[in-house]
C-alpha cells in the first residue's frame, strides 16, 4: 500500500470520527438548549453564550436557531418578540410546562446513559478516568 493510500485511509477515518462527533454534539444540543432555558426566558445569543460557557457543544451558531424553532413547534418552548434597549427587537424563548418536563426527563436519561457508558469506556482511558474520579 502506497503512502498516498495510507494517508487517504487515515483521512477517511478522521472524517468518520468528525461525523460521529458532530452527531454526538447535535444529539446533546437539544437537551442543552432546554437546560439553558431552565433558569428563565432568554433570547438566541444569550442561549448560545450559556451553552458556550458550560460546554463546547456549539460548533456553529446557526445550528441553534433551527433547534429553537423546532422545539417551539413541538410545544416545548414559547417565543415572543420584545423590543430591546439596543434598538432592535429580540425573540425571547421560555420553557413550557411540557418543555420543563421533557428537559427533566432528558437530564435523568442523560445521567443514566453517561454513567453506564463511562463504566464501559473506563478500560480505554484508565488515566483520565482516575482523574475524573
Amino acid at each position, binding site marked *: 500500500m502506497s503512502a498516498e493510500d495510507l494517508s487517504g485511509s487515515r483521512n477517511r477515518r478522521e472524517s468518520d470520527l468528525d461525523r460521529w462527533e458532530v452527531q454526538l454534539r447535535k444529539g446533546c444540543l437539544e437537551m442543552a438548549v432546554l437546560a439553558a432555558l431552565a433558569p428563565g426566558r432568554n*433570547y*438566541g*445569543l444569550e442561549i448560545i453564550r450559556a451553552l458556550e460557557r458550560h460546554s463546547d457543544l456549539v460548533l*456553529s*451558531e*446557526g*445550528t441553534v*436557531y*433551527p*433547534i429553537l*424553532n*423546532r422545539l417551539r*413547534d*413541538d410545544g416545548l418552548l414559547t417565543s415572543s*418578540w420584545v423590543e430591546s434597549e*439596543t*434598538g*432592535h*427587537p*429580540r*425573540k425571547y424563548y421560555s420553557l413550557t410546562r411540557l418543555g420543563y418536563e421533557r428537559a427533566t426527563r432528558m437530564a435523568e436519561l442523560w445521567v443514566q446513559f453517561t454513567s453506564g457508558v463511562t463504566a464501559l469506556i473506563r478500560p480505554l482511558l484508565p488515566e483520565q478516568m482516575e482523574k475524573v474520579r
Partner: protein
Amino acid sequence: MIMTNDPLEMYIGRFQASLPSMTLAERQDIVDEIRSHVHDRVAAHGLSIPEVLERLGPPETVAGEYHRGNLVVGERFSLLVLLQIPFAAVVTVFHGMFLMVVAVYGYAGALACFGLLIARMLFPEQTMLWMTPDWHLGMGPDRPPDATVFLEKWLQPIAFAAGAALFSLTTLLLQRTWRSMKRWYRRATGPLGIPILSGARQAASNISKEFRDARSRLMRVPTRLHNS
C-alpha cells in the same frame, strides 16, 4: 434585480433562497431572528458583520437545518398571509410620511431656536419679548407702554436648551421610526419569500450556476488542447 454589496443582505438573500417552503410569516420570523442575532453579536462583541456571519455558518447549511427539523410545514398559503402584504405596505408608507413630517418640523423648530439665540446676541432690542396685561404676546422694540418685558436674561439659555432638546428628540424619533419602517418594509416586500417564487428563484439560480460552470469548462478546453 436589486444588487447589493452589503454582506448581511447577501447572506440573508442566500439564506432565504435555501429555506424550505413555509408560510410568509414563518419565513419572516426566521429571517428577523437571524438579523437580530447578527446585530446583537456585533453590538456585544465588537465583531464585524462578516466575522459574525462566519460564526453562524454558511447560509445554505443553516437553512438546511430547518429542512431537517420538523419545521417544514409544506406549501401553506392563506388569504391572511396575502392581506398582510398590502397592510405592511400601507404601514410603511405612513411611516415614511411620519418620518418626513417629523424631520421637517423637528429640525426647523431646532433651527428656529438656534436662530433666535444668534439674533438675540446681534439684535437684543428687536428680539425683546413682551406681554400686555390682556395676555397679548409680542416681540420687538415697538411694544405698548403697558407691556411687560419678560425672559430678558433667560431667552438665550432657554432658546439653546429648546433647540438642543428639539434636535436630539427629532433625531431619536427618526432613528426609531426608521428602524420600524425597515421592518414593515421587509414585511411588505415579503412576496419574494412566497414558496412558489422562492422555488423559481432557486431554480433560476441553479440554472445560472450551471451555465457559469459550463462556460468555465468550455474556456478550459482550448487551453488543454493547446497544452497537449
